């Protein structure tokens, strides 16, 4: 992944950041509102959506997570740049 990053990379990354952010917000909210069933339903719905967007992103730009949470092609992709602070 040392090639030049295209427009699509930033677009897909932004999509993922947006969905993940909703999940962070709902998670913190649910930590203090554990009985809000509508919020739990929204959380689960976004978790499903997140899975699809992350899989799509990883198929093009490599694994988002280490330690078995993402699959790898050969050669081992995890160690490839760019790292988050480089893009």
């Amino acid at each position: 992944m040392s090639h030049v990053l295209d427009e699509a990379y930033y677009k897909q990354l932004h999509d993922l950041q947006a969905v993940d952010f909703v999940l962070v917000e709902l998670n913190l909210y649910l930590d203090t509102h554990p009985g809000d069933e509508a919020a739990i339903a929204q959380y689960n719905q976004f978790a499903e959506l997140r899975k699809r967007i992350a899989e799509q992103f990883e198929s093009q730009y490599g694994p988002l997570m280490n330690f078995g949470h993402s699959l790898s092609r050969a050669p081992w992709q995890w160690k490839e740049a760019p790292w988050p602070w480089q893009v």
Partner: protein
Amino acid sequence: MWAYEKKLQYPVRVSKCDPLMAKFLMEQYGGADGELAAALRYLNQRYTIPDKVVGLLTDIGTEEFAHLEMIATMVYKLTKDATPAQMKAAGLGDHYAAHDSALFYTNAAGVPWTASYIAAKGDPIADLYEDIAAEEKARATYQWLIDMTDDVDLQDSLKYLREREIVHSLRFREAVEILKDKQDQRIYF
């Protein structure tokens, strides 16, 4: 166990080489009210707080590490290709002498991070009030940082981080309400 994700929580863009601003931003990297202090404060307090609020401390503590990575990204980008002369002119000569352009956990004045920046009293109310105060101080620090730059891209990321302090403060205030409550009733308003 912690999981790492190979992405920032929010995009960080900076539009000019500005090592002086990097120096100021170190206040949120290794300063008393910075993101490292925040993460370590909450993740340490959680072992001795009622179970009801352990999840919240774990989650906010974890999010703070994502914010630490954003601040690191800002400092990294703002100093990446700065020359020794530029570092010196920005007041980072002392930093350069010890670290080149490596990041280090100091505040804006170069004082190394210390555990005395954080507290763990073991009293749930005292600790949560400490956390609320920490969020308000971090919010204020972000305000003064926003005031000191005219880089709109950098301001954008700093405004995002400031807003997170607001949300975290609210959640800690709610945690206090939860601990005040007698029988796990729902307590809106």
